[in-house]
């Protein structure tokens, strides 16, 4: 079966060099600050020109022996199926344009979010200047008077070395959300 993520390779990979680990984590902390402080243009500028921002839909599926969860296409929709997000640079630019308009009601007033990123595991990238990075996130969202949403999940990124201020651009991000039915009225924020 074609696999979404090879989780076994990540689990068995050697620990990354301490300096590299530090560098990548510091990148994520700063990236989270951009999102949490609604610095939309700065965050979108971190997406490289070949960005693939992808969030498949997750389903309830009976467990079968030998099936690894994150690579299981019974549990996740495949690339030819429906998804929550399946974006390239052009559609992400459109989303930025929506956010920056005065009429983007779902984020105007803006949500208060807190992106917490942890469990960072770095493995070798496919190109010399890229890294594959697996991480976990918990995102708290509070908006308007009393709305609270809590999202948790796993991110699988391809980070590419860059001469920008934060040292990396995001070339690919696959978000595995820990919800099958999304328990929120929309997904108007990014992960």
């Amino acid at each position: 079966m074609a696999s979404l993520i090879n989780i076994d390779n990540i689990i068995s990979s050697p620990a990354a060099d301490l300096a590299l680990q530090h560098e990548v984590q510091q990148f994520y902390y700063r990236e989270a600050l951009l999102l949490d402080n609604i610095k939309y243009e700065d965050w979108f500028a971190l997406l490289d020109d070949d960005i693939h921002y992808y969030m498949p839909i997750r389903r309830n599926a009976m467990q079968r022996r030998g099936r690894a969860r994150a690579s299981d296409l019974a549990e996740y929709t495949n690339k030819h199926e429906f998804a929550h997000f399946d974006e390239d640079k052009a559609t992400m630019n459109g989303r930025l344009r929506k956010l920056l308009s005065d009429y983007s009601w779902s984020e105007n007033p803006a949500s208060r979010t807190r992106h917490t990123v942890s469990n960072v595991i770095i493995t070798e990238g496919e190109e010399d200047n890229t890294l594959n990075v697996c991480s976990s996130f918990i995102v708290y969202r509070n908006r308007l008077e009393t709305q609270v949403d809590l999202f948790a999940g796993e991110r699988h990124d391809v980070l590419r070395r860059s001469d920008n201020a934060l040292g990396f651009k995001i070339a690919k991000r696959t978000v595995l959300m820990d919800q099958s039915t999304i328990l929120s009225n929309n997904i108007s924020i990014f992960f």
Partner: protein
Amino acid sequence: MNKEGTNAPTWSIDEIKKLVSDENGTLDARIYNDEALYDLELERVFARSWILLGHESHVPNTGDFLNTYIGEDPVILVRQKDASLRVFLNQCRHRGMKLSRDDAGNAKAFVCTYHGWAHDISGKLIDVPFEKEGHCDRLDKSEWSPLQARVETYRGLIFANWDEEAPSLDEYLSDSKPYIDVMFNRSEAGTEAIGGIQKWVIPTNWKFAAEQFCSDMYHAGTMSHLSGITAGLPENVTLNDIEIPTDGNQFRAKWGGHGTGYYVDQPGLIHAIMGPAITEYITASPQAEAASKRLGSSMFGQRMMGQHMSIFPTCSFLPGVNTIRTWHPRGPNEIEVWAFIVVDADAPEHIKEEFRKQNIRTFSAGGVFEQDDGENWIEVQKLFRGNKARKTKLNVQMGLGDSTTEHPDFPGRIGGVYSEDAARGMYQHWLRMMTEPSWDTLKP
């Protein structure tokens, strides 16, 4: 609980009749959030209406099943050996546990995970563990299978209805069928669903969602979706450069509460939602010309644009965008949206892919259009907690008295594209379902 199996029905038929006025175009806000009315709705609307469960292509092979809902009742939709479809309550008759717990799959049997009562794919109870030792041959298994619903299809769409007395799906759809066909009968090959059903929760009443798709072109180009439109404009074009279309119509079904609206010959909105490739495919491609032949006119095949439609109570879709969904009610104050995408089965692969990507971009939980719908509906719903706000008389008067059945191009009762005649039709049918217990008076 009363005899009807509902909680505290404090509403008399006469009281309910005062909540909605088709004649005056007014609504009482309590129809959206009253608990007792909602309990009556589950009984009188959801247990008597045809509810969209899925598409034939969701369950192509024997034993393929889909777990879904009629109202708040979980049901299993299963393809049978003879290619027919069955729908039955996802509930074991022993202690009421679910018989199937994954979203979809293929089954040879449905075995309850509580005590192991086993059912074949038609929903028939066939095996009870320790039957001989425990029941000593006194259990008549034929008496203890889960409740079956009626299942009927229209153009690949699967609907179910608990009520044996209800009219057939064909009668139920009434004179709305030509308008459904714009999306579902474009090609001899029919349609197919793109895999994956997106589900999300919106704290709002189901009628807001159903009514918007039934009758509300008004919100799209006035306020709600301006930022969604902006997201799809070419880099050098702004909102100031585009003109929101005004030419088009709205249709109100003569029976059943169904409705639709659309622009004519004005691709502005559909272009902003779906982009140039899909706009060309549905208005000017060889496939679009073939659709015109099949549907009997270029009007129905190529010239209706940006169409919205609802089949009462909770089936809604957007021809041209090709999203379709059921608004499953979860109490008066919440819905679960179950949305999927359909495409012409014989559409070129790149067109199918474009439909998939544009739906994800626009009409989905994260879609640049649909995000903002969720925002409006939850705010309104919350407001109705107020003592005065919930008693507010609401205005649904647009186009009152303006519709005609004499339109040269469109059959049925037709008004302008910015109208609320279809909304009035939806609420009037809701009122009839809520106040007429017998199909003798209610039937088409």
